[in-house]
Structures are given as C-alpha cells and as structure tokens.
C-alpha cells in the first residue's frame, strides 16, 4: 500500500468508527421508541448507513460496502413506510452494526475478518425486505397548494414524509424567515429545534432574500398538530402560511380549538432528543466556559469571606466555609479541565490538508519536497486550529517557494536533491509550539537590512542585530515586489500572518542560518477560554495582565528609572529593561506624586523575543479570568485583548502584551521624553 492509501484507510477507519458509534446510540433510541419511533430517528439511521456505504464503496472495502448497501435498501423501505418495525428487524440492525464494527477493525487487523458471516446477515435482510409492502391509495398531495419549486426540491423521502403528514391529518405549513448571512445556521437550527417539538420539519429550502437585504431566507415545510396561529407564536419572526386547501378538513384538532394543544397527544410531541451524542456548537461550549468563569469569581468571593475578620470570630462557621470553598475549588478545577478537554482536537486534523497543498505546490514549482509531520496528537483548542490553518499554509508556501532551492541549486550547495519541510507540534507547559522547519537557502539578515532601509522601515545608517532584522520580515510593507509569485504572492505578507497569530494570543518568530534553512516558531496558549492573570492598578484603573506574558514583578523607586536614548529603562540584574508606563499608554492621568522615593511596580512581560517592563502603581492580586470580547468597535484597539469581570460586576480591560509593545512602546516613550525636557 502506498502512503496515500494508508492515509485514506486511516481517515476512513476513524470516520467509520465515529459513524458506527453514533449508529449504536441511535439504535438504542430506536428500540426505546418502538413502533411509534419518530421518523427523524429512522432517517438518521438510514443516512448513517448510507454514508458508510458511500465511503466503503469509494475506497474498495467490499464487505462493508455490500452489507451497508443491503441494510440501506432495507432502511429505505422502512423510512418509506413499506415495511413494518418488528423485533426481528431491530435485532438484525444490532447484529449488523456489530458486524460492521468488526469489519472496520479487520481493516487494520485482517485476522479478525474471518469471524464475520455476511451471507447469513444478508439472508436475514432479504427475508425482512421481501415482506409485502403496505398499499395506500389516493394522492394526498392534491389536498395541498404547493408550488412547483418546493415540490421539485423534495427528495423522494421528503415527499413520502409530506404524504404521511397529510394522511395523518396534520396542518401542513410554510414557515418562512429571513436571516443574516453571518449567523443563519445557528438561528435556523434554533427555529428548527423549536418547531420539531411540536411536529416535523419536512424540508428546509433556502430561498432568495426578497426583502432587499443581504440576508438569506429559508422556507421550512412543516407538518404539525398546531395550526398557523399557534406556530406563529412559536416562531414570532417567521411568516407562517397554511398549504391546505380550504376544503380539506384537518382531522385531529377542530378548527377554532385552543391555539396550543393542551397535552401531548401524539408521539410527534415527544420532547426527547433525537440522539445521545450531538456535535456541539463551539459557541455552546463557550457559554459553559463562561459559566465556569463566573463560578470561579463566586469562589474567589467565598474565599475572601472565609478570611474576613467577622467570620473568623465565628470559628466553626469559618471552618465550614473553608471546607466548602476547598471542595468547590476542586470540583471547579475538574469541571474546567473537562470542558477544556472537550474543546481540544489533535493538530493532526489540519495535517492532511497541509500535506495536500504541499504536494500540489511542489509539483507546480517542480521541486522535490519531503514533508515530515510530527506531533499530530498534540491537542489544541478547536477554534484555534481553525484559525491556524491559513497562517500555517502561508508559512509553508513561503518555505516551498522562497526557502527550498531548485534541485540544481541544492546539489551545488552539497545538499540532497530533495528539500525537506518539517512541521513539528508539541506541548510546552500551557502552550503549544508549532515549528515549520525547512532546509532551504535560509534568510540573509544583510538582505533584510538592505530592503528595510530601502523601504524606510529603518534608517539608512541604522545598525540592527540579526534578531531585530528577522523581526522586520513581519512588518507591514516589508514584502517586496520581487517576492510576489503565483504561489505565495497572494497579497498577504507575513505581517498578516503575525496579526492572525497575535489574535490567537500567540507569538511568531523566525531564526535562520543562510544556506542552512529557516525555522518559523509559533507559540500558542492551549486555550483562550480561561487564563491566569495578574490584576494591576495604574492611573486609578485596574487592568488584567495574562500571567503567560509575565516573567516576574518587582518593586522599584523613581530614582531607579534612568533615561537612555530618550527611553526610560531600568537595570534588571545585568539587563537593561525598557519601561512602558501603563497609565500613559491608555491616556490616564498619572496621579502619582513625583519624587525620587516614589514607589512603583514593574511587571516584567515578554511577547516572543521582546521584553518590556510595564510600570504600574500597584499589584492587586492574581486570579483566573475569562476573557470576553469588547465588541466590534473596540476590537481593534491596540494593547487590549478584551475585558473581564473581576469581583462584583467590576469590568477591567485585559492587556494584550504583544500588541501593547508593538503599538504603544514608541508613543509612550516619546510622551515621557517630552515631559523630561
């Protein structure tokens, strides 16, 4: 087998296992609901078998595909109402899923394959399928006024469900609503879920937004026990219209009856969820995470209370409170850990995408490349993985295009014809490190200096060390015209990559040795959901500084602050630490009295290779915080990562150290320098 086949087999195995897992749970649901099973459950099982058949067929797993095909045929008849639900049928489904599971395992361990007897299962399936179909007469759809486009868009199964709903005497309604393109999926799912509690959403048809906006409208075909007025109450933003011709009476609930049913009279009204496993929208996890965050705040308050003087006097009570607080703490940590874990996915998820691109780009560039992928099990927050794909792709394209030389060039330099790009992911404390390493021509710091000087990013005569030179390639406007090519010249430079990484609270650096290659290193926090922060006070306001950016904090006096080249600095051991006054950065009045003995606190922070001392009036405390977005308008404010609630509904800004250094370093320095003149 080639590596490609291996990859395909691995992907199939994991998707098939996931499918069969869901299928087993759905079967339990099916069995529990018995003959009154909701059509959605049957259809879900049908779709799962159908997907499995498609996958197995494509990849040539004959046994799985054949068994799935026979099952699909049986389930299709079942959902179309052509065969009845019996105990035999349910037993058969269980046995089949068991066999499918074995067959999937056997893909990787062929010795197990012999234990599965497909012929016996197939015979049982045929026996059930050969039962006489139930005959129904008449064309119930003639009772409806349904337009052609909608009718044509129904699958055969949907049409069958519509017929069944009409036969059962349900109200058949159009529920039409316009949504914003940005979040229609979420809102539509909510609407569908609400409607499903009192009926069946038969079809979901996207239609043009005729209101003139840029949104998208959906027309749901809905069969329900409720009439249009009652449905309009469930879906207040939707237009609800009835499809039944006036002459066709609805059989179940009399017209003019109560707007809402008094009690569930039909299985369709069951509030049970369809499945025990659902794909969780990350927004919902965010919400749970926020609750955890709020609980943590409560816990902090409880802790403060246990230490307070009044309570100390009542020693027993204090003792009890301490115990509760400690227990609460332990449970909270557990909860927090498990919620974070559910958000985690392996980095390997994006590896296959990346390797495809590498193969393709290498072919286009006529270069021979070996892509080495390491650490694919390293886990990272799902949301961050999504956001990481583009920046990573960009760096890899750059490495392919500009880094790795042509075979001739490589041979001349005494290297192998084939270039190597290594992607290595690993965890380091609470961070995940991603290295993109190539063995190409490397980046010449001299060339960077020349380009930077030409573009006015540094002074003509300015000397900068190599480290600073490498940093310059992430500056907006650095990318040169000669660099733009089909592959990496997509109008975005490394400055955008850096911005993307910073938005994820990460850092990016590069080290390179001319002739030997380059390493781009991305460091990201494992999750953005909850972080430890240092709460500080400056200019009368409190701020939160993420502890991941803090190296140490110390107390100094005004007389310790020196000015070197118009920049305030402080000598920290043998290192000259540049200082940044937080109050200045946010334009707050500095109410400090000024004298050589004025006390300050310096929070030594680091973002990537840069270190800066943030000068504040006081260190307040350390605490866990949940970063919340501060809305569109302030989103791009430099130096601010978001806001958080600390203590009793007090909102403080969370500092983004990386962007604070980038944006305020210069300005705060100049303002200070003027004040000293």
């Amino acid at each position, binding site marked *: 087998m080639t590596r*490609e086949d291996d990859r*395909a087999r691995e*992907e*199939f195995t*994991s*998707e098939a296992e996931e499918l069969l897992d869901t299928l087993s749970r759905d079967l339990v649901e099916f069995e529990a609901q018995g003959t009154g099973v909701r059509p959605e459950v049957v259809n879900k099982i049908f*779709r799962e078998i*159908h*997907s499995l*058949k*498609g*996958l197995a*067929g*494509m*990849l040539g797993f004959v046994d799985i*595909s054949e068994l799935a095909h026979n099952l699909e045929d049986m389930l299709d008849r079942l959902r179309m109402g052509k065969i009845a639900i019996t105990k035999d049928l349910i037993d058969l489904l269980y046995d089949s899923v068991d066999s499918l599971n074995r067959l999937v395992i056997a893909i990787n361990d062929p010795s197990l394959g012999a234990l599965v007897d497909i012929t016996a299962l197939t015979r049982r399936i045929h026996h059930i399928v050969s039962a006489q179909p139930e005959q129904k007469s008449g064309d119930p759809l003639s009772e409806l006024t349904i337009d052609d*486009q909608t009718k*044509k*868009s*129904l*699958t*055969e199964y*949907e049409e069958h469900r519509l017929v069944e709903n009409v036969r059962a005497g349900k109200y058949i309604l159009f529920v039409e609503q316009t949504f914003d*393109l940005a979040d*229609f*999926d979420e809102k*539509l*799912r909510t609407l569908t879920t609400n409607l499903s509690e009192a009926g069946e959403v038969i*079809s*979901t*048809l*996207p*239609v*043009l937004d005729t209101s003139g906006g*840029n949104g*998208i409208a959906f027309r749901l075909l809905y069969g329900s026990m409720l009439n249009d007025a009652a449905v309009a109450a469930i879906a207040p933003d939707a237009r609800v219209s009835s499809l039944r011709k006036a002459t066709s009476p609805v059989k179940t609930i009399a017209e003019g009856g109560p707007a809402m049913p008094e009690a569930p009279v039909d299985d369709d009204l069951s509030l049970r969820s369809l499945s025990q496993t659902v794909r969780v929208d990350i927004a919902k996890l965010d919400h749970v995470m926020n609750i955890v965050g709020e609980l943590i705040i409560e816990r902090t308050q409880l802790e403060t209370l246990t230490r307070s003087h009044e309570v100390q006097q009542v020693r027993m009570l204090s003792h009890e409170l301490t115990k509760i607080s400690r227990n609460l703490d332990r449970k909270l940590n557990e909860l927090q850990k498990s919620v974070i874990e559910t958000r985690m996915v392996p980095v390997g998820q994006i590896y*296959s995408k990346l390797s*495809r691109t590498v*193969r*393709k780009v290498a*072919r286009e560039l006529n270069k021979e490349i070996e892509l080495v992928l390491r650490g694919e099990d390293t886990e990272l927050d799902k949301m961050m993985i999504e956001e990481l794909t583009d920046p990573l792709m960009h760096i890899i394209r750059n490495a392919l295009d500009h880094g790795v030389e042509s075979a001739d060039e490589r041979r001349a330099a005494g290297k192998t014809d084939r270039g190597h790009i290594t992607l290595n992911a690993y965890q380091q404390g609470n961070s995940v490190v991603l290295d993109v390493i190539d063995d190409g021509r490397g980046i010449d710091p001299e060339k960077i200096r020349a380009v930077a000087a030409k573009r006015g990013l540094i002074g003509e005569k300015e000397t900068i060390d190599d480290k600073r030179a490498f940093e310059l390639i992430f500056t907006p406007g650095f990318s040169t015209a000669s660099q733009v090519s089909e592959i990496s010249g997509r109008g975005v430079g490394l400055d955008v990559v850096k911005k993307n990484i910073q938005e994820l609270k990460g850092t990016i650096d590069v080290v390179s040795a001319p002739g030997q290659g380059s390493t781009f290193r991305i460091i990201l926090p494992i999750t953005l959901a909850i972080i430890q922060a240092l709460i500080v006070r400056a200019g009368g306001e409190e701020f939160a500084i993420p502890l991941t950016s803090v190296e140490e904090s110390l107390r100094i006096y005004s007389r310790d602050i020196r000015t070197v080249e118009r920049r305030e600095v402080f000598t920290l051991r043998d290192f000259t630490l540049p200082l940044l006054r937080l109050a200045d950065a946010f334009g707050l009045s500095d109410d400090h009295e000024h004298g050589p003995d004025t006390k300050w606190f310096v929070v030594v922070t680091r973002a990537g290779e840069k270190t800066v001392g943030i000068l504040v009036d006081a260190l307040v405390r350390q605490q866990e915080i949940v970063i919340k977005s501060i809305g569109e308008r302030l989103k791009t404010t430099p130096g601010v990562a978001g806001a958080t609630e600390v203590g009793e509904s007090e909102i403080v800004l969370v500092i983004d150290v990386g962007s604070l250094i980038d944006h305020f370093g210069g300005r705060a320095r100049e303002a200070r320098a003027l004040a000293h003149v």
Partner: protein
Amino acid sequence: MKILVVEDSSSMRAYLATVIEGGTESYELEIVEAASGFEALKTLPHHKFDAILTDINMPDINGLELVSFLKNHPVYKSIPIMVISTESSDEDRRRAAALGAEEYLVKPFQTGDLIDKLRRLLKVA
C-alpha cells in the same frame, strides 16, 4: 479556476480533492471545501466559483435544496453543478436534473468519470 465541493464526510471530501487534483494537473484549480449546505451558503458570497460539486444526503439542507436555491438565484444560477451522490434512486436523479443540475455522478465512481464530467462542466479540454 475555482470549484466548491460540498460533502459532509471528511474522508470523502479528502478523497474527492485528491482525485480532482490528481486528474487536473494541466491547469490551475483551486478547491474550496464545505462540510454542509450551510457552509456552502456561507462561503458562496466570498468566492467566484466556476463549478460546484455537491452530495445529496447531508444534514441541515440536502443537495437538492442547495441546487434549487442556486438555480433560482440571479447570481449563482450560471454556475454549473455536478451532483455526486450515492443515491441509486432514479427519482432523485431525475429531480436533480429537473432542478437544473448539469451533471450527475453516482458513488462509487471511476475516477476517470469524475474527471471527464468535471472537464465538461468547466468546458476545458
């Protein structure tokens, strides 16, 4: 050229992308993947697609509903569509054609068939 592949199975998406990339080496082709009809609707305004390949059986909205929307849309109606489905049902195939889908391919398929149909869709040799 840019094509949109709408398919809810991740391994099937990866397979389709590999086959298409392998069979269309002679010209520049960019594949954008959508894991559902919703994702497809969200991504459509951001690209100019030369062709759309879609599965039928998907959660949320199915392939036929997507085709119906596209073929009734003033901007998207000119994008050629290939429905790739495991549906053996002639009925669904007939419906796809009635809604205006240009090509229909039944899984499992020969890779050559996919590439031929795609070429026809893109009007390239």
